[in-house]
C-alpha cells in the first residue's frame, strides 16, 4: 500500500545548458510557465498558496544571501508563502519532499516546488571548482566534487574488477538518452573509445565520466489527491520518499564501494511505498559521475553489489533494458543545475509514468518510477522519491 497522500498535477522544465542570456529569475519564470502549461485542465497560478524554492549554492552567481524570496515576485506571485530548501545535491528532491509534507499535513493546499540554479555565471575556477578550497583547511583541502566519488571508483575497480569501459558504458548510454531529450544540455552520442580517451579530471575519472556545469530550472505542482481531479484526470501520486544521512568526512565511510545514505534513503522510500526494487519500472538516479550511477543501481537494489559495472556494460539499464536508468540523459547529458536537478528528474518520472516521454518512453509495467540524489560533504545525504500512477 503506497503512501499516496500527495498528487503531482503539473511539471516542467527549461532547456538545460549554459544559459548566459538568462538570469536566475528568468530561468525560474520559464520553468514555472512550463509547469503551469502542463496542467491538463488548465491552471490558475493564484491557486498556489506556498512555494518551496530549491537553490543549492547562491555563491555560484554571487548571491549567497538569497533566501528564495526573489522567486514569488519573478513568477507574479509576490505575497505567497515561500521558503528556500537547501540540502546539497539532493536540494531539489528534498524541497519536493518538504513540499509534499506541507500538502499532506493539510497546512497548504496547492504547492509549487521550483528548483533554480545558476552554475555558469562565474568562470569554472570561481564556480564549483572553488569548492576545493572550502571546508576543512587540511582534511578536505583539494576536495573538488569528483573527489567525493572517484575514491569509490578506485575501490570498486579494485574489489569487483570494474573497468573504465564499464564506467564509460554509463556515459555512452546517458548521452544516447540525452540525444532523445529535447531539454538536455548535451545532445550528442559518445563512444566508449571517446570516454576512455578523454583527458583525466580526477583519476580514475576522465572528462566524459563527469557531468557538466549547467544552468537550469524545473518546477512541479502538487496538491492533495482529492483536489487533483480539479487539474487532471491522470494524476501521479507520491508513493513514498526517504532521506538519510551519513558521516561527512571521506575517512569516516563504512564502505568505499557504496553509499550508505542511498541504501537507507531508498529502504525508507520502498517501505513507505510498500514496494521492492523489482517493482520499479524506471529510475532517474544521481549520475554526477559514471561511477555514481554504478553505485546507485547497486545501493538502490536494482543489481547485486559489485555487479553495477557489468550490468551497465551489458545493457541492463538502457531504455528497453531490465531496469531503464536515466532515460532523460541523467546528470551526465541533461546536466546538473543542482537545485533544479531533482525536480527535473521528477518531471521525467512524471512524463514516463504518463507515457509522455516520446522517443525515450520506457515500458511501464507496475506503475512506479524512482528518483534519487546523493551528495554533500562525503556524499553524506541522499533523498529518494517514488512516484506512482496506481491510485492505491
Amino acid at each position, binding site marked *: 500500500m503506497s503512501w499516496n497522500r500527495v498528487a503531482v498535477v503539473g511539471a516542467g522544465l527549461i532547456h538545460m545548458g549554459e544559459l548566459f542570456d538568462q538570469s536566475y529569475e528568468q530561468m525560474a519564470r520559464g520553468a514555472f510557465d512550463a509547469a503551469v502549461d502542463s496542467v491538463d485542465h488548465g491552471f490558475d497560478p493564484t491557486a498556489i498558496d506556498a512555494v518551496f524554492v530549491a537553490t543549492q549554492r547562491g555563491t555560484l552567481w554571487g548571491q549567497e544571501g538569497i533566501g528564495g524570496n526573489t522567486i514569488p515576485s519573478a513568477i507574479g506571485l509576490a505575497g505567497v508563502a515561500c521558503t528556500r530548501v537547501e540540502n546539497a545535491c539532493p536540494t531539489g528532491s528534498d524541497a519536493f519532499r518538504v513540499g509534499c509534507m506541507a500538502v499532506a499535513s493539510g497546512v497548504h493546499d496547492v504547492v509549487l516546488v521550483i528548483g533554480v540554479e545558476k552554475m555558469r555565471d562565474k568562470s569554472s575556477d570561481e564556480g564549483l*571548482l*572553488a569548492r576545493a*578550497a572550502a571546508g576543512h*583547511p587540511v*582534511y578536505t583541502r*583539494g*576536495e573538488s566534487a*569528483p573527489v567525493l566519488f572517484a575514491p569509490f571508483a578506485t575501490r570498486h575497480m579494485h574489489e569487483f574488477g570494474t573497468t573504465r569501459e564499464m564506467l564509460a558504458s554509463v556515459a555512452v548510454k546517458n548521452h544516447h538518452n540525452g540525444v532523445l531529450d529535447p531539454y538536455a544540455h548535451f545532445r550528442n552520442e559518445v563512444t566508449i573509445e571517446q570516454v576512455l580517451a578523454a583527458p583525466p579530471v580526477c*583519476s580514475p575519472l576522465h572528462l566524459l565520466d563527469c557531468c557538466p556545469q549547467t544552468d537550469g530550472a524545473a518546477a512541479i505542482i502538487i496538491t492533495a489527491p482529492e483536489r487533483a481531479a480539479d487539474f487532471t484526470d491522470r494524476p501521479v501520486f507520491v508513493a513514498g520518499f526517504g532521506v538519510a544521512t551519513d558521516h561527512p568526512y571521506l575517512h569516516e565511510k563504512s564502505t568505499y564501494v557504496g553509499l550508505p545514505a542511498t541504501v537507507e534513503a531508498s529502504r525508507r522510500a520502498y517501505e513507505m511505498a510498500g514496494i521492492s526494487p523489482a517493482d520499479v519500472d524506471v529510475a532517474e538516479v544521481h549520475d554526477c559521475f559514471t561511477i555514481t550511477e554504478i553505485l546507485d543501481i547497486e545501493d538502490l537494489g536494482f543489481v547485486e553489489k559489485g555487479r553495477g559495472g557489468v550490468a551497465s556494460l551489458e545493457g541492463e539499464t538502457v531504455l528497453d533494458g531490465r531496469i531503464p536508468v536515466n532515460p532523460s540523459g541523467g546528470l551526465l547529458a541533461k546536466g546538473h543545475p543542482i537545485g533544479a536537478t531533482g525536480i527535473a528528474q521528477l518531471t521525467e518520472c512524471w512524463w514516463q509514468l504518463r507515457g509522455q516521454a516520446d522517443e525515450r518512453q520506457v515500458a511501464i509495467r507496475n506503475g512506479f518510477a524512482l528518483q534519487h540524489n546523493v551528495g554533500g560533504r562525503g556524499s553524506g545525504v541522499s533523498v529518494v522519491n517514488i512516484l506512482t500512477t496506481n491510485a492505491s
Partner: protein
Amino acid sequence: MSIAAVGVAAPEWRVPVASIDAAWGRSPGRGTLAVCRSDEDPLTLAWAAADRAVAAAGVAPSGIDGMWWGCTRPPFAEGPSWSTLAATLHLAPEADGALLSGSTHAGLDALLAAADAVAAGRVDTALVVTSDALLPATGTGHETSAGAGAAALLLRRDGGPARLVHTAHRWEPRLDRYRGDREPETRETYDGRLFREQAYLPMLGAVGDALLVDATDAGRWSLPDPDGRLARALAKRLRAGTTSAQDVAAADRTRLGDLGSAATLVGAAAALGSPGPLHLLGVGGGRATGCTVIVDAPVPGAERVTADLSGGEEVAYTRVLRSRGVLRPTGESVEMAVPPGSAMFGRGAGEMLGLLAARCVDCGTMNTPPDVHPTCISCGSTKFDVVPLGRTGTVQTFVVNRTMPSPFEAPLPLVVVDLDDGGRIQLQGGDDGAELSIGAPVDLVLRRYAVERGVPVYGWKVLTRRPVAGTDEEVTS
C-alpha cells in the same frame, strides 16, 4: 653535555645547476641543488630531521623539554614558527628553547644555546634543529648555490656517545648575504672571492686555530661553503698551522647546494658515526663560531644519514620557479573558506599540527579531527582521550585530482589511509601520486598545505613507502 642522536633531511627534488645557468645564458655549472616542493619549507624540513633524531634516540617527545632552532628564514618572519614546529613534534607543553635567526650563523647559535641550557641544568633533553631553504633572487648567481636541508641533534646532560668539549668565536661587522625587512629574496651583496678572502677565511681560520690549540689530532671539520671553494681554501689555511692530516668537508655541497645555517650539522651528521674529534664551524652575519665534538662511539641516527640524503628526483628549473611562487598563473587564486587568523584556526591549529584524534573511551574509535566530533561516529559516546594518530598505514583508496583552480597544483593525490593504530584519515599525497595503490604501505609527513593570505598553513601528507636501493630498509619517497 652529550649528543645522544642525530637526524637529517633534504627535499627529494634536485635541480641541475646547469639547467639554471642554461636559462640565463651562462656557461653550465656543476652539481645539483636540493630544492623544496611548494609544500616544503624550513619548517617541514626541520620537522623531518627532528623526527628522525627523536626516533633514533628512542625518547618520548614529551620528555624533550627544550628546543633550539636555528634557521635563516623561518616561515613566519614574525610569528609562531617555533611553537608550530613544537606542536608538530609534540614537545612537552612547558618546553624551553628559542628560535635563532638573522643569518646563516643561526645553526651554531642554536647548538651552543641548547648545549648551555643542558649544561646549566635548565633542561634535561634538548633538541637542536637547524634548517634552511634559502630563497635566492631569481637570475642571480646565488640561485646556483642555494640548497635546502636540515639536521637535528638530541642533547643530554651526560652519558652519550659524543660530547662537546670546546668552543671559539670571532666577529667582524661584515655585510655578506642580506635581506631587508620587506624583501622576500636574499641578496648576495658580496663578491664571492672578496668575502671568502677577507671575511670568512680570516674569521674561520682564527676560530679553527683556537679549536686546535689543545688538540692532538686535527680531526674532521664541517662548515658551510657558500661559494663551493671555502672548504678547500680553509683546509689550505689550517694545514699551515698543523702537522696532522685534516678532512675538511662541507655538507654534500655538490648534490645539495649550500644549506645555510643547516650546512654545518648536515655535513657533520654522517661523521658522528665514527669515533674521533669533529670540529663544527659556522659563519654568517659577521660572525664565526666553532666547537669541537669528541665522538666516543657511533651516535644513533648517523648510520642512516647517507640514505636519508641520497634521494633525488631531478626536476626542471621551471618547476622550481613555480614551487617558489616566482612563476604564477595570471588571475585570482581561490581563497580558503576560513582565514588563518580566524577563531576556527585557534581551535583547530593544535589538532591539525599534532595530527590529533579523539579516541573514544568506550569503543576505541579514532574520531578525526576532534573539534568537529563531539560524538563518537561508531558508538555515540561523548568521552574521549585526545591522542596523536600514528603516522604509518596502508592505502584504503585514493584519487589523483587534476582539475583545480589556483593555488592548487595538479596532480594532487588525495588518499584515504588505514593507519596501523586503527585510525583512518583522508589527507593529500605529498608527491604526484604515481606510486599509489590500494594496500600500499605509506607514511605521513608534515607539509605546508597552503600559504593562505600570506600565512603558512601546515598539515600532514601521505607518501608511499619504498625500499632503499641496496638495503633492507625502506624510506618514504
